[in-house]
């Protein structure tokens, strides 16, 4: 067990790799095991967490914290009652209005530098002072300022990737030219895996093959589950379907992360 909590950034090269689904369900899994977790939506260009969690209004958004308008405790929304588990779940949401998205897209370098300082400060204000076990940053794909800020502030980067060739190549490039340069501990989650396409590989063989390809550890392999897609993000799948294989894979991933840190 860890003495001090960790910041995890969930990132990807391309969009649609399942970052938000992974972030939300990983957060819920940690909560199931009694952890105090805060999930942040750092995808300011396409915020989705507010919609997924059906939260329409809040006094302060994560945008306000990064703009220096408020402190982080004003942004956090306690969802622990919804989860009914041992731990605690908080969220910090990105403002989904068009005006806010436009505002966040037009920030200059100095603003981004201050935003990085504010993200780095979360380690003190939430992890050290408020005892959070995990802060999970759900980021926007590719080389966006907000995503790189999140990566720099994180202790662990989880990269969600699919078997799409351009995604594989882009992920490999990011491993070399982004995560390595910042000396970040990085692990890969292979998502939406269609086992039918690679019948000659079992799970372990596939893991070894992909670790060889990416040269970083594979944290988990998630097959393409129709039930997960059908749920359309309306529920926290890992919470509502505790016996489903998807939930079991998330359990394994959460334990691996917890053991590593």
């Amino acid at each position: 067990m860890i003495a001090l909590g960790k910041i995890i950034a969930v990132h990807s090269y391309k969009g649609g790799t399942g970052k938000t689904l992974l972030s939300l369900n990983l957060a819920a899994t940690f909560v199931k095991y009694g952890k105090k977790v805060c999930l942040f939506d750092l995808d300011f260009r396409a915020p989705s967490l507010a919609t997924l969690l059906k939260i329409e209004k809040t006094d302060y958004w994560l945008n306000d914290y990064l703009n220096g308008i408020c402190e982080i405790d004003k942004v956090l929304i306690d969802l622990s009652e919804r989860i009914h588990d041992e731990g605690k779940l908080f969220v910090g949401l990105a403002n989904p209005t068009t005006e806010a998205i436009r505002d966040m897209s037009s920030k200059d370098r100095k603003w981004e530098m201050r935003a990085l300082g504010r993200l780095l400060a979360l380690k003190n204000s939430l992890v050290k002072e408020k005892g959070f076990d995990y802060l999970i940053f759900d980021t926007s794909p590719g080389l966006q300022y907000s995503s790189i800020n999140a990566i720099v502030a994180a202790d662990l980067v989880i990269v969600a990737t699919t078997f799409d060739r351009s995604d594989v190549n882009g992920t490999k490039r990011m491993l070399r030219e982004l995560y390595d340069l910042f000396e970040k501990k990085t692990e890969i989650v292979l998502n939406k895996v269609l086992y039918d396409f690679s019948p000659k590989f079992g799970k372990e063989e596939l893991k070894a093959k992909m670790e060889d390809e990416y040269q970083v550890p594979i944290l988990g392999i998630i097959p393409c589950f129709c039930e997960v897609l059908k749920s359309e993000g309306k529920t926290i799948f890992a919470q509502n379907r505790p016996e489903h294989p998807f939930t079991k894979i998330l359990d394994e991933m959460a334990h691996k992360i917890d053991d590593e840190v």
Partner: protein
Amino acid sequence: MAKRDALGKKPLQVLEKIRENLEKLNEKMEIMIELQKHGKKEAQPLPEAPLDVMTLLSMPDHLRKTAMTVCRLGRATAEDVAEQTHRARAVESAYLNQLVIMGHLKKERVGRKAYFYVDREGQG
């Protein structure tokens, strides 16, 4: 013994003072070298260059490591940085001063210690 009395200090303290002065001299030389490299006169004010992530990405590896450590620590001496990077204190001191000259870090002396930090609020 006679020398010790004449100076009125213990030899160790004298050596410590010499080391301190040599460090200051070293820092000044590094600044002069950097200013020469950039073709600037000493009188010119230092440029302000925000230490954002894109700047960090474009830095040489050895400076990025130092800059990232200061970002994480908030405010640090060369010794604090060296502790994190596992490089020699003198090496970190040189890199930190280089980052100051490049306008990415600010430096403040408090007594005998020099603190380095990112001036996030002051810029812009």
